[in-house]
């Protein structure tokens, strides 16, 4: 029983923090929100050069093959500064999918480049399920083409390749498609969190031989993705809590700091408590992964709880800040809007809770 990180991990945290703090402050976050691609190339290059992108990739594919706990550390730091990059999509999610592909050639070709941050591979799997008429993407094995429309695809505009989840007669699979292929149309999707989200339409896009394979898992989401998403929410919540506590100590009303009002301090205490709960729940999921235990249940609980806590805290933070919390010049709104993104992307509350209940009641 030891809940401290080791020296190597602390070093990793320091490295990532330095890189993050170099690229991301509030002004940088705001600037990116106004751009189309929303990619800080310098930040991305730094992540590649420092070997951070290689974190979870196997050594034989040029990766660092570090543990999921290290991944959690990295994403906590990303969250702290609201860093924006295709790390989750490319170096985690796409790398996971490519690692499971079974084609050594494909893995050997792409993973080293992902590990170096040289290419950005973006999984495209989310579709419009709200409408009755929507037809799921499919792979036609005769013509070797993929057709369909993917929604809210992060960083699609900077992708070098897409991993497209598509249905076949025998189940779902993934197609690896260069972003420059004919038949791909990428349209920006302005959104609540000002994140780089895109609709990506695939119209009979050709898939090269060996570039389509059956999906190993039922869910589009891997343990690593859930753990990383949870850790990012934890990091963002940590920073926001700090900002809000500082503000409550400094802002005076009725002749004293508003921190002195329990209507302020107790909701913050509640958030602080739950934050530590979800922080270690996230670490535990990562630890279990590193121990080779079945960690999917923990990872789902971590993702659901972390995003929910972040959102709840964001609501409290805006309220504590009053008008400043609501104005765009204040910091809280950045976190408030981002918190909803965390809640909805990579597993919604409804979906995760269903899986959690399935596990508990099985």
């Amino acid at each position, binding site marked *: 029983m030891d809940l401290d990180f080791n020296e190597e991990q602390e070093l990793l945290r320091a490295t990532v923090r330095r890189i993050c703090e170099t690229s991301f402050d509030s002004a940088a976050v705001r600037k990116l929100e106004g751009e189309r691609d929303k990619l800080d190339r310098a930040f991305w290059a730094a992540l590649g050069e420092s070997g951070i992108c290689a974190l979870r990739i196997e050594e034989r594919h040029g990766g660092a093959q570090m543990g999921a706990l290290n991944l959690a550390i990295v994403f906590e730091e990303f969250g702290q500064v609201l860093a924006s990059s295709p790390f989750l999509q490319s170096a985690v999610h796409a790398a996971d999918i490519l690692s499971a592909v079974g084609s050594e050639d494909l893995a050997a070709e792409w993973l080293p480049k992902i590990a170096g941050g040289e290419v950005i591979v973006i999984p495209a799997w*989310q579709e*419009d*399920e*709200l*409408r*009755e008429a929507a037809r799921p993407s499919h792979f036609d094995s005769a013509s070797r083409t993929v057709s369909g429309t993917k*929604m*809210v695809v992060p960083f699609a505009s900077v992708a070098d390749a897409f991993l497209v989840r598509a249905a076949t007669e025998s189940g779902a699979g993934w197609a690896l498609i260069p972003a420059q292929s004919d038949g791909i149309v990428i*349209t*920006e*999707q*302005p*959104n*609540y*969190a000002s*994140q780089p*989200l895109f*609709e990506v339409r695939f119209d009979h896009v050709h898939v090269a031989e060996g570039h389509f394979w059956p999906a190993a898992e039922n869910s589009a989401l891997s343990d690593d993705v859930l753990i990383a998403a949870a850790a990012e929410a934890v990091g963002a919540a940590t920073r926001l809590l700090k900002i809000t506590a500082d503000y409550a100590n400094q802002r*005076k*009303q*009725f*002749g004293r700091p508003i921190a002195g*009002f329990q*209507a*302020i301090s107790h909701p913050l205490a509640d958030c602080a408590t739950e934050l530590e709960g979800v922080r270690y729940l996230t670490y535990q999921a990562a630890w279990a992964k590193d121990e080779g235990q079945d960690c999917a249940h923990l990872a789902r609980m971590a993702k659901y709880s972390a995003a929910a806590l972040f959102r709840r805290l964001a*609501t409290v933070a*805006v*309220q504590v800040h*009053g*008008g400043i*919390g*609501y*104005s*765009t*010049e204040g910091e809280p*709104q950045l976190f*408030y*809007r981002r918190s*909803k*993104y965390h*809640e*909805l*992307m990579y597993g*919604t*509350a*409804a979906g995760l809770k269903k899986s959690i209940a399935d596990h508990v009641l099985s």
Partner: protein
Amino acid sequence: MNFAFSEEEMAFLKDFQQYLEQEKAGPDSSVIFAPWRETDSWLVDSPERRGFMKRLAQAGYIGMSWEKQYGGRERPGVYDYLLNEELSSQGAPIIGKGVGCIGKTIIAHGSDKLKQEFLPQILAADIEFALGYSEPGAGSDLASLRLRAERRGDEWVLNGQKMWTTSAHFADWYWVAARTDPEAPKHKGISVFLVPMDHPGLTIKEIKTMGDHRTNEVFFDEVNIGPDYLVGEENAGWRYVCEALDYERFALYTVGPLLLKFEALVELAKVARRDGRPLSDDPVVRDRIAEFACEVEMATMLQRRVIAKAIKGEVPTVEAAMYKYFSTGLGRRIANYAIDCLGPLGLLKSGAPGAPFGGRWEMSDRATVVDTIGGGSTEVQKNIVARRGLGLMVGA
């Protein structure tokens, strides 16, 4: 006990609804009736909306409850309520602070000169006001405001800053609370002034908000105004500010937008699908909607208490505090839940391909955030309920 409005009141409402139907056929309809604007749909902030207001005035709907001697119709205050409930339910600008707290304060405390200058303009909807109470250091603790008004000879000279003045960028006059006696206890040294918004000493700076809704900081640099534009008595301003709540008791507390929002959520559940079936088939969604249904009905009851008390001629301070924070918190939770129902696509803004319901809920969530903060925060309202409703010996 009677939860319904009288036949006469309902007949009036029906007439007014018919009047609005005509307006909706007009060319500016889409600017005037804009429920998607949510929290700022009540503002008279465009030529089209000013035109609408002037037509309302010509049709006799403005100043319904003013005394006849000031050009009003001396109808009971509930008619003001019915008008604004209908307007807000349709996302139209409401009959606001000019005919409400400002006009009524001028009637009660203003000089003949102020009455002659302002009342006819208000009745004709020729004038829009901005309200200047909040300051950077005076939010919930409004009485600690520091904007300084010094007497220099015949004039008053104002220096300092106001914050969160929603209408500053389109209003004609500024209704401002300023400190005229810095030595007096904080509630005792405040006076109210009327300042022309185009005064060269005023600098208006936009504050953008996450609700896409504009508010402003206003800086006062040697803003000199004549003695006539002090409203009522010097140092009696805090009383006037507090009385305003009384004057607004019919106008501010409409429930229509909340009901619309809930109906839209029900519609969402019937239309949007998850795993191939309408959300309304999901027992978890049904359970949550049942809870919202109850809360919306409770909010409606709290709103009815405000109006019923106002109808009796009493000041619904506690009732208004209860309704304000309960309904605004509920509105936020409904908007938030609606996005959750929509999943990741709920993030998409109006105009984004695939944005469900035209991005309405994305907008709604951002817009409703201000509701629990502005106009007396939830915390302040709960203090009022605790102290004045429950008689608790609370501190500040």
